[in-house]
């Protein structure tokens, strides 16, 4: 019989603890714990659209188990923007911060277990604890930095270099993500991707 979803909670909480401490190592453990205890756990089936474009659910997520694809539509085509696996945090940041429309669709590529927290609750800890506000600041810096790095890579690296970088940093995703999504993520056609992969 399958394990109850709640039985996974402690393990994912530990991963969340480690993830947040890596972002901001000097966070007092008791304050961090208070925040972590506010997360709830939920399981989702493969291919579930967690959040469609145009909708903002003001929720922050942490991936306990599974795979998330974030994409947007341009000229009728889906363009994969991010691929996130276990121990990643994500949220519809743009629309949470601006109140504007969310451009992106969040889809689960596998059966997944996610920890989630309402952004209002998460944000309340920023005012409550200085260290958590610092954690939040560092988190958005890391996130924003990663966005910027990706645009720089797309600008300056060749398709082959981008593929090599992807293999180096996300080896495990190669077996888990359909090639058409990887091609889209790398900003190349599936044909180009096949050609590059044939070399390796």
């Amino acid at each position, binding site marked *: 019989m399958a394990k109850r979803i709640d039985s996974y909670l402690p393990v994912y909480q530990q991963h969340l603890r480690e993830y947040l401490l890596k972002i901001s190592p000097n966070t007092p453990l008791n304050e961090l714990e208070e925040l972590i205890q506010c997360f709830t756990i939920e399981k989702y089936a493969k291919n579930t659209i967690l959040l469609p474009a145009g909708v903002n659910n003001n929720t922050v997520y942490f991936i306990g188990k599974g795979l998330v694809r974030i994409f*947007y539509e341009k000229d009728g085509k889906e363009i994969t923007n991010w691929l996130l696996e276990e121990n990643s945090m994500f949220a519809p940041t743009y629309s949470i911060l601006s109140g504007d429309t969310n451009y992106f669709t969040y889809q689960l590529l596998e059966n997944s277990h996610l920890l989630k927290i309402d952004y209002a609750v998460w944000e309340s800890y920023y*005012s409550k604890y200085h260290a958590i*506000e610092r954690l939040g*600041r560092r988190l*958005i*810096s890391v996130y*924003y930095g990663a966005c910027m790095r990706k645009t720089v890579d797309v600008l300056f690296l060749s398709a082959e270099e981008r593929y090599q970088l992807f293999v180096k940093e996300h080896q495990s995703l190669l077996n888990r993500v359909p090639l058409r999504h990887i091609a889209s993520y790398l900003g190349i056609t599936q044909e180009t991707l096949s050609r590059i992969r044939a070399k390796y």
Partner: protein
Amino acid sequence: MREKLAKKTQAVEALQFMKQILERIAPVNPVDLQKLLNKFEVVQVPKNEIIINEGEIADSFYCIYKGIVRIYYYKDGKAVIERFEKESGFFGGNFTHLTKKPGIHVYETLEPSILLRMKFADLEELCAISHDIEHLYRITIGLFHNNFVDRIYTFKALSTEKRYHEFIRQYGDIINRISMRNVANYLGMSSETLSRIRAKYDKFPDDHQTEK
């Protein structure tokens, strides 16, 4: 003597300007706000001076009191303008202070400018002692992140004409201070195309608002 006094008055005005910008972003208690303002340095920069160069790791960030800064990178040997910053705009090396990787951008003044500069290290120290300043910093990064997303995902998706209208909406007040060559570069179009679009729309400036 008079020049020194003029410079001092200018510095006072620049800091007052900075104070107003910060107050608009998030509230900071008066004591901490003053500590923050004390860490800003007012610098005069001549036209066409490079403030942060490609390959550098920025140790400071800047706010423009007077002037315009052009931010560009080189792709295949050609300069590509990513954006302009005008009065009250910020720039700081695009996170090179965090990634510790050499930056790709060049930050250059288009006219004689007065900038407010602070070291990232000083900001970090102030954040450690002040929750209000930490909060201000967090909110500010959120704003920059959203501007970035707007630039990458919306601006790039617009047609050439719509991009021009968006440019006028954002930078209309400084268009006389930027060369058309720079504007065309930023909009990703040839000077000829830009001239054609300007001829079409600049007779009726209000059309920039109705076209959306």
